[in-house]
């Protein structure tokens, strides 16, 4: 073959490829409703979850059974009420009331003062207070009891007639990275991982199956275009769409949720783009495995949603999980991405701290791509 002819063949191939990408763009562009959802959904989610999701405990409803009703119990109750952790539920006058309030879920914790609390404290120097937590949610119960104990102990330290002990150790506490203890610092990187993961995986997972279902796949199969180009052409429009989403998510995080980007912006954006490609490739893999749109969607949503939320480490600490799950969590791409974003965005660390995780994402991408191209059948069964 003379070299000139070879060159023109190359050009036609390139042209084919570009036409193919254009075709995919048209698909995406013409479905305005889907497009609207794809742009709107991540924004809404980052806003809703950024503001509403927090595992801080505040304004928890508590019941108080004050059998003593003296000066001191009133003071302690005031202290509890003044803290931002507790809201006091009125109308509790007996053990039966207390039980009913717990039963119906109206209160999360109860503080029980015995009768003659102050008398006993003043005369025997000792008096009990009972804290009862609703341990259906053990975490909240534990936290509330800890907070309440701290408030009561604080009150005791500053009680009238109390003199300072000698040999006192003070502790000074510094909150690193998140001095205001805002929940969004933890959740924004997590929500970013979740939103990108789900939008990208779902969209691409449908795209190939859809052609199969509609029958247009046959047209593609008889065309001279090679599988890898079909697969890549499918990714391009969604990749661009995701880039827009990444930009808007970052803007919202910084200006609306006030989560600053401490690290290098270029590094952060490139990591986001890398993750997008990983997930797009995962979506294509699902697409080449699934037989119908319904199956593809069920896999990419049901199959990816819970593992992403639960195993990526932003809701539940990975080190608490049983060992087999810790191992499994390693194959969840969102876990690595969450780690990377947290380190760059919140801690402000550089590439030297995340290169291993970046490499893992890169490896996953290559793996997904290779498998989905291999599985892309050039004939219909």
């Amino acid at each position, binding site marked *: 073959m003379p070299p000139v002819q070879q060159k023109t063949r190359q050009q036609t191939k390139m042209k084919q490829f570009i036409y193919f990408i254009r075709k995919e763009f048209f698909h995406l562009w013409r479905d305005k409703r*889907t497009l609207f959802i794809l742009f709107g*959904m991540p924004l809404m989610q980052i806003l*809703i979850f950024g503001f509403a999701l927090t595992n801080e405990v505040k304004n928890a*409803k508590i019941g108080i059974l004050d059998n003593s009703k003296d000066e001191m119990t009133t003071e302690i109750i005031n202290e509890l009420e003044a803290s931002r952790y507790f809201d006091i539920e009125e109308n509790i006058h007996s053990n039966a009331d207390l039980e009913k309030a717990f*039963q119906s879920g109206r209160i999360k914790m109860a503080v029980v003062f015995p009768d003659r609390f102050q008398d006993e404290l003043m005369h025997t120097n000792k008096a009990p207070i009972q804290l*009862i*937590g*609703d341990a259906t949610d053990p975490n909240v119960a534990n*936290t509330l009891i800890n907070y309440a104990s701290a408030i009561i102990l604080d009150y005791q330290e500053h009680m009238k007639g109390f003199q300072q002990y000698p040999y006192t150790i003070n*502790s000074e506490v510094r909150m690193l990275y998140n001095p205001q203890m805002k929940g969004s610092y933890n959740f924004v990187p997590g929500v970013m991982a979740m939103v990108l993961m789900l939008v990208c995986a779902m969209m691409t997972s449908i795209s190939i199956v859809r052609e199969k279902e509609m029958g247009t796949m046959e047209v593609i199969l008889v065309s001279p275009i090679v599988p890898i180009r079909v697969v890549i052409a499918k990714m391009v429009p969604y990749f661009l769409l995701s880039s827009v989403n990444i930009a808007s998510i970052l803007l919202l995080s910084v200006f609306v949720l006030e989560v600053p980007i401490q690290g290098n912006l270029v590094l952060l954006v490139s990591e986001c783009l890398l993750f997008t490609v990983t997930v797009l490739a995962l979506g294509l893999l699902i697409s080449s495995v699934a037989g119908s749109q319904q199956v593809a969607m069920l896999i990419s949503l049901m199959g990816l949603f819970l593992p992403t939320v639960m195993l990526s480490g932003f809701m539940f600490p990975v080190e608490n999980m049983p060992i087999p799950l810790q191992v499994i969590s390693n194959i969840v791409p969102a876990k690595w991405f969450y780690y990377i974003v947290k380190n760059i965005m919140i801690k402000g660390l550089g590439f030297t701290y995340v290169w291993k995780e970046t490499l893992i994402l890169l490896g996953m991408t290559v793996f997904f791509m290779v498998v989905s191209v291999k599985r892309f059948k050039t004939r219909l069964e």
Partner: protein
Amino acid sequence: MRALRILLEKEFRQVFRDPAILRMMFIMPAVQLIVMPLAADYEVKNVKICIVDYDHSTYSQKLTNKIVASNYFKLVDYTDSYEKALEHVEKDEADVVLQIPAQFEKQLVKEDKSTLFLALNAINGVKANLGGAYLRSIISDFNRDVRLDWIQMPRFNPVPLIEITSLNWFNPLMNYRFFMVPGILVILVTMTGAFLSALNIVKEKEVGTIEQINVTPIRKYQFILGKLLPFWVLGLIILTIGLIIAYVIYGIVPVGNILTIYIFAAIYLLAVLGLGLLVSTLVDTQQQAMLISFFMMMIFILLGGLYTSIDSMPGWAQTFTKFNPVSYFIEVMRMVVLKGSSLYDIRSHLGIVFIFGVVLNSFAVWNYKKRS
């Protein structure tokens, strides 16, 4: 009535003929219910601590030993450089840094007063708060030991002492799984029901078979009912499988009456499926149906109180949860399974979800047009 029966027969056949969907409908929730609760453990334990000791005294040794001996902390590094400790935090190898300053013991003995520095990784606020609280309680314990070394305590309490005792009701062992399993089951039932019903009508639109139904004398409400009932049955089957898994694997036996759960679930499923069908009548393609219903589900689920407590959400989000059917079912499930609440206790939940069901299904019937 006959029309409805025939329609139901068609729907059931369609569902059972697709083994891939059927498999996924039952196996995926089952697997997730078995695996996911194992991951759901918020409990703060094994807080990783790094101790920076500039003092190297008997007291700093004693304090270190006391911290290591407690069950809460895992000592990552014992060093004399704060920079090194901070690097551990940066790499996520440590959560807490305790810095014992030089002259700590000397100051304590000579000046009656000394200060320790704690630095907590506060990205996860809860962990930081609890880790800090544990550490401070160990320090104050240590403080008491030190005082005992130096002063003769009187036999009786010299100062008033409030004794705090705590009790954990409903779940005395503080088992997190009792809390998570019922909630995850709700989510799985909801997701399967909502997605499948949302995809159903629109699939007929996409494939074109809806035209055939439109020319039959089947009434609109019969059509919707025919779509609703098969998934309603499937939803209850998934719930049953889930409850069996909860019992066999996690040993969870509902404290309350199991019938209460079923009564609520029956009505709840009507609401969820109604929502799915409404979406299905609104959209043109399966893709749109999936996106919209997924978008709603994600918000419903994450704001439903399974993962984070509704009480700590801002006001507008709490108002929103009043319109969130998922949050009602999660609450009811926990109330019945863990606290043994009765039908009477959950009557308001039941009423509200019933209204949801009626409204959503009427909308779906109204919105379904027999011509394109």
